[in-house]
């Protein structure tokens, strides 16, 4: 009962933020009618404002929702498989690794020439970071202290950030460009990013849901899970691939956005307990809400100048992390 209420609440909140982002904080005055026309009729009815809504605002809001869903899902998956409530793509360096991959691709240093090369590079970068962190942190050893993985993640994230900076310096010694890589932003997303995101979110989401019951079993204890027939190595591999796809797609579309994967599952755990069959889909929904909200804030904070959404999520997420770290151990 409580769960359904929570689910309904989150979805309503998400819808409300989506609607708000269609017409607020714009240099134009967009009315609700324009927004409606833009959304429903794709701008063919209602004039220029509706057209703008359809071409710019709707893709942006949709992207925000998808990115949030991807990151929320990835966070829930990582927390499930490591049984560590601090696990998340940004804290474990996966986002930084993906960003490094994207930097290498965009500056042309390592650029597979086929379509989808960018997505491949981000997934590859994220994969390398994940493998490094999980091996360094002794992820699978039963005696690992919870914080050790985070330390490994922080070290790898710092390394990836430095390598990203080096890449940009070598190609173009401009301060401005370096900064654009530091924080993900939804300012210039369009239909292309939506096309990239929706298949990845769909595949990743369905796969995650499919893994959910086994994640529940793992959280009872690895031996218990094994005796119940869960293929642990296979589950780890599946979670690995699914998370990489989700994180890779979101970094490829909008750049590195952090903390969403940390915040969403942990908030939900307060109200829903540890059942991954609920935790996973609702993390996706709550993640979407967070990024939609962050995107709105990013336009509101210094209107009409935009702050990158990645910075806003960091400003919200870091204190949350402070609070969690104090309690988690």
């Amino acid at each position, binding site marked *: 009962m409580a769960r359904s209420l929570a689910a309904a609440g989150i979805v309503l909140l998400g819808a409300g933020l989506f609607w708000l982002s269609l017409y607020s904080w714009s*240099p134009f005055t967009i009315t609700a009618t324009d927004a409606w026309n833009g959304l429903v009729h794709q701008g063919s009815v209602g004039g*220029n404002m509706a057209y703008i809504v359809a071409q*710019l605002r709707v893709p942006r809001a949709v992207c925000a929702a998808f990115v949030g869903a991807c990151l929320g899902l990835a966070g829930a998956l990582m927390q499930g498989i490591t049984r560590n409530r601090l696990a998340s793509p940004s804290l474990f360096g996966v986002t930084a690794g993906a960003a490094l991959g994207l930097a290498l691709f965009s500056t042309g240093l390592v650029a597979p020439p086929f379509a989808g090369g960018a997505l491949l590079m981000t997934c590859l970068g994220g994969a390398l970071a994940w493998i490094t962190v999980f091996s360094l942190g002794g992820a699978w050893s039963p005696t690992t202290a919870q914080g050790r993985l985070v330390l490994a993640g922080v070290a790898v994230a710092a390394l990836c950030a430095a390598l990203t900076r080096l890449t940009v310096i070598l190609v173009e010694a401009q301060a*401005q460009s370096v900064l654009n890589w530091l924080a993900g932003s939804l300012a210039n997303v369009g239909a292309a990013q939506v096309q990239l995101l929706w298949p990845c979110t769909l595949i990743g989401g369905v796969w995650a849901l499919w893994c959910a019951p086994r994640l529940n079993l793992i959280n009872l204890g690895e031996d218990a899970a094994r005796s119940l027939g869960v293929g642990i190595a296979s589950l780890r591999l599946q979670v690995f691939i699914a998370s990489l796809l989700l994180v890779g797609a979101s970094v490829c579309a909008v750049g590195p956005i952090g903390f969403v994967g940390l915040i969403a599952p942990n908030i939900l755990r307060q109200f829903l307990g540890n059942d991954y069959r609920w935790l996973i889909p609702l993390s996706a929904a709550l993640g979407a809400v967070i990024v939609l909200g962050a995107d709105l804030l990013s336009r509101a904070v210094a209107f009409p*100048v935009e702050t990158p959404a990645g910075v806003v999520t960091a400003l919200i997420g870091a204190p949350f992390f402070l609070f969690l770290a104090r309690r988690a151990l």
Partner: protein
Amino acid sequence: MQILRSIPTLAACLLALSSSVLSAAPIDLNDGQHAVHLPDAPKRVVVLEFSFLDSLAAVDVTPVGAADDGDANRVLPRVRQAIGQWKSVGLRSQPSIEEIARLKPDLIVADLNRHQALYSDLASIAPTLLLPSRGEDYEGSLKSAELIGKALGKSPQMAARIQKNRENLKAIAQQIPAGASVLFGVAREDSFSVHGPDSYAGSVLQAIGLKVPAVRANAAPTEFVSLEQLLALDPGWLLVGHYRRPSIVDAWSKQPLWQVLGAVRNKQVAEVDGDSWARNRGVLASEQIAEDALAILKGGKAVLSQ
């Protein structure tokens, strides 16, 4: 036109008269931060920003060294032609003190914004002027040029050149349709930065009688804008400098929303060289900008090449 032609002759006469007086005397000036004393007109000059190179070109002085980001092609072609060869001393943001010292300069001109940390070292090598360059507008750059002219012992020549510059711009202004609204911006692969009325390019455009829309009240000289904000600004003319290709403007121009822009519908979008318009600043650069603007607006040539 006649008046314009006789000014250089007048200036040359003045110069011939005064150069014999000035070149033997020590030069004292204040750059706003420190008092600088030069025992004689400097012969070996090192400059650490493009705008200072421009000022040297205005009075036909060749520096022994310049910070050019390791790429001489970033410098305005007409500046390069006027000056000739120089030795690179590295990045503008981090010039190499070893190279500078090795050149044994007798005058160094550095950027107030970037090279403050180096000042004590530079000052012990040679008398050093700290002048603003980044974030400067047209009038400010002329003031810096005057100071550089004074330091070189070529004040009259610089004053004449600046006067010629003002007249050149006025002449161009007369040929341009008055009050046209022009927006210049620099495009990278994922961002578009608009140069507003307080930026260098913006202030030059205003000096030739064009209107430059402001992104907002209290805007910084350059601001990032999204496509939506660009649509709201809706300038009469849109001039784009591409720092990287393909840039975000290339991507925007493929969207149907691009056609909503008035400038696009009236075929008033054009490409300009980002380096000339944004990175170089100075007397010759302002003339380059003005001439480019004239060619685009008067010729009605407006082509955004894909």
